[in-house]
């Protein structure tokens, strides 16, 4: 079988050609680094890189110290302990591993081995063969084998009665999972999915992790791990948990990579509010937080060298979902008119009062296949110079039978308190630019989901365009494909669906990028909904926290932190 292969293998070196083939197989996420005797490069201040053994990752700084407890403030409550059933992965993923992971030291740009030491992808892009590491044990001492991978993934494919797997939807692309031998697992997809490998890394902090559970734990608990903290294989294991207050994960001395982690323990302190998370860092009650309020973040930035304050894309956007099945939005000219008329710079400014944000098109700006910010700033609808766009928008509205907004019934802007300021700003934009009269209805955020589902809205302003990975294929499949589960705008375009089909089947990165550009053009033309600003989380660290290369990250990810070390 002809294969595209990536192997950290015994020979320990990979050819450039093999590497490039691997890149193509992962949907723009490079599959690289940690190869053979290859060294990690980077570091936040140009320090010499540490040498990594095959298939491993190290802190980028050469002088990484050991010891100490890394104190992190953030969300620390969990609905249950089963990550696949809604347990909070940002908390629990400190103790679990996945087959593959993203490299924390290069800004999460590449996919690197985790429990799988190597993998091969068939030329048809449908079969992934993972070679598993030797000498890996779960925290309870049970040896890790392919049976654990099969048990974990089979439960996603065919959840037993009473078990609700949230990841089942995205895992529908998988046809079957088989163990070839105790060290080899084969995953067969129903169709090529170039983003699959990145998906297995667990994506962002959102909740889309794919940790490997032990078959023993699954069997002993009738496949339901909601009430038990199942043993993991990660660099940290659970030491202490005070519900609703904190978690302490201590160093797993039996971790397969003896060099990791650097710190003795991670203390994850539950702090519900964003400002509190940051002030805890400012006052040395904590070492870092992945997300704090804009004001606290700016305060830390102003204090100079004592803190590292970075903005990291969250892969999530504020959106105004337009109901394409409701008049007058059944007419694409009305949607396009609104798309052209709104001033995104102004709306991003409004969002910026509470969180960092930037203008993006139809995918997170940090996605490698995204239109560059410079290009976006020249595009109709996105550019700051509005005269031509407004003239075109008014013409379109007039052609649709609503000259200067006349004849339009008042449109309802549905939102929750969280987005109320942005909604008010959008209301004013529509009034000023197109004389479209709107009324705002604010309801509880928890009640928006039924509204999305029932489609009982004109325009719904919220943050429902969230990608769990850099490759936007799942995002488009989920939100924009005709009749997709989260196609809240009820957008339907055979032309767009065809492009999306091509993206799914196309392994070549350059061609995929061109297809994404084509898809974005269709979306700009059809304006199924509005992206009002892609958010960035304000991450804050005391300067003593090293090893995470936060300044390079292209997306937010809250675990693992096994390369972190404390310069105290």
């Amino acid at each position, binding site marked *: 079988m002809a294969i595209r292969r990536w192997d950290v293998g015994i020979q320990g070196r990979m050819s450039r050609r093999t590497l490039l083939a691997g890149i193509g197989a992962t949907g723009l996420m490079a599959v690289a680094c940690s190869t053979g005797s290859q060294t990690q490069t980077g570091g936040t201040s140009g320090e010499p890189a540490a040498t990594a053994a095959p298939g491993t990752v190290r802190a980028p700084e050469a002088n990484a110290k050991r010891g100490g407890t890394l104190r992190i*403030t953030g969300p620390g*409550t*969990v*609905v*249950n*302990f089963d990550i696949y059933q*809604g347990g909070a992965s940002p908390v629990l993923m400190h103790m679990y591993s996945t087959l593959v992971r993203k490299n924390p030291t290069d800004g999460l740009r590449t996919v690197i081995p985790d429990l799988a030491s190597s993998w091969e992808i068939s030329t048809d892009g449908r079969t992934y063969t993972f070679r598993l590491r030797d000498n890996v044990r779960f925290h309870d001492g049970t040896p890790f084998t392919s049976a654990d991978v099969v048990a974990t993934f089979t439960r996603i494919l065919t959840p037993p*009665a*009473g*078990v*609700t797997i*949230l*990841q*089942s*939807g*995205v895992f529908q692309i998988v046809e079957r999972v088989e163990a070839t031998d105790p060290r080899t697992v084969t995953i067969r997809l129903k169709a090529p999915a170039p983003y699959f490998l990145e998906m297995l890394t667990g994506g962002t902090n*959102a*909740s*889309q992790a794919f940790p490997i559970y032990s078959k023993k734990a699954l069997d002993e608990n009738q496949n339901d791990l*909601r009430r038990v903290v199942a043993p993991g294989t990660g660099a940290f294991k659970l030491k202490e948990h*005070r*519900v*609703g*207050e*904190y978690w302490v994960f201590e160093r797993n001395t039996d971790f397969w990579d003896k060099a990791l982690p650097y710190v003795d323990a991670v203390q994850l*302190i539950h*702090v*519900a*509010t964003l400002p*509190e998370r940051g*002030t*805890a860092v*400012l*006052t*040395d*009650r*904590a070492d870092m937080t992945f997300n704090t309020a804009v004001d606290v973040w700016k*305060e830390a930035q102003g204090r100079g060298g004592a803190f590292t304050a970075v903005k990291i894309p969250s892969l999530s956007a504020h959106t105004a979902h337009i109901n394409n099945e409701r008049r007058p939005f059944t007419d694409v000219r009305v949607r396009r008119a609104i798309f052209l008329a709104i001033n995104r710079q102004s709306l991003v400014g409004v969002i910026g009062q509470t969180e960092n944000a930037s203008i993006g098109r139809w995918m997170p700006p940090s996605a490698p296949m995204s239109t560059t910010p410079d290009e976006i700033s020249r595009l109709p609808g996105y550019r700051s110079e509005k005269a031509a766009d407004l003239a075109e928008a008014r013409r379109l509205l007039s052609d649709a039978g609503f000259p200067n907004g006349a004849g339009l019934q008042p449109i309802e802007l549905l939102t929750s308190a969280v987005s109320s300021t942005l909604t008010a700003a959008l209301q004013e934009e529509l009034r000023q630019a197109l004389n479209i009269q709107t009324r705002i209805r604010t309801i*509880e*955020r*928890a*009640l*928006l*989901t*039924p509204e999305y589902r029932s489609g009982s809205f004109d325009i719904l302003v919220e943050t*429902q*365009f*969230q*990608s*769990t990975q850099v490759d936007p294929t*799942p*995002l488009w499949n*989920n*939100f924009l494909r005709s009749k997709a*589960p*989260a196609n809240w705008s009820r957008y339907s375009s055979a032309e767009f669906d065809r492009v999306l089909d091509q993206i799914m089947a196309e392994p070549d990165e350059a061609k995929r990028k061109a297809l994404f550009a084509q898809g974005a053009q269709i979306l700009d033309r059809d304006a199924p909904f509005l992206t009002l600003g892609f958010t960035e989380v304000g991450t804050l660290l005391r300067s003593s926290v090293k090893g995470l290369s936060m300044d390079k990250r292209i997306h937010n990810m809250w675990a693992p932190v096994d390369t972190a070390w404390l310069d105290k």
Partner: protein
Amino acid sequence: MQAYVLRRLLLSIPTLLGITLLIFFAMRVIPGDPLAMIQGEGANQILTPEQVEDARRSLGLNRPLHEQYLSWMSDVLRGDLGRSFWLNEPIRDVIVRRGIISGQVAVMALLLSLLIGVPTGLISALRRNTGVDYMTRLLVIFFTAIPPFWFALLIVLVQVLVFSWRPPIIVTYLWDDPIASLQMTAGPAFVLGLAIAAVTARMTRSTTLEVASEDYVRTARAKGVSGGAVVWRHVLRNALLPVVTFSSLSFGALLGGSVAVEQAFGVPGLGVALVFALSQRDWMMIQNLVLVYGCVFVLVNLITDLLYGWLDPRIRFA
């Protein structure tokens, strides 16, 4: 006395039952349930209708309402308050754990309010229309008008921006580390205590003035009783009756109603738990917290009535 207490306790049963019925059905009537929140979490967490039904069944939400209610009541009588949907913890543990913090804040705030409010009100009344009275009244108006939440934020900001200090963020109990525990609760207790102290002082002043003009006070003075004894034995004791009522009710309110201040200081008390539960539609948590608040208020009311009898022997319980 015992019969009175018993009768009051028995009378509280229908009150509490009414509360349970009201909160149980109110939560079912208003739109949204815990599953709506779970589904709304992320773009790729869209559950199919079958998955929603499975999850609803596993939470026992598919049973008829009367069955759910009776099951809850039966659990409550056995001392089992169930588990939180979102915190993954027995609710009894949440109430105990957070109740201790809220209780500590409430007791500290109440003591502070009495220590400041009663003497201030008394002095203000006794020095009526003097400089002391005017200054006191100004301060009272200031602390009555100032929103505790805003005041709390101001304190937090000064702590963080000026002193780069904030209280511990990990909950510490008095018996574990008294200093850390007091650091954690002092802020909210101070803010809440001042707010209540202002009202207490105002109330003490007005009731003292009222009582001081009573015939029996004038008679006591005419009989040659010293000024201090008149105030202590005859004025203060009678003037404190409404203050006791106010302070008792404030204590109940402090246990659950100091959400904003708890939030500002980052203190994880019962109020914050209730607000979180409401936003997450954590029905079991809401039901049981409201029931606990109901019990607390019934108990506080009873204790208030008993205190009345102690302060004013003319009130008979029979």
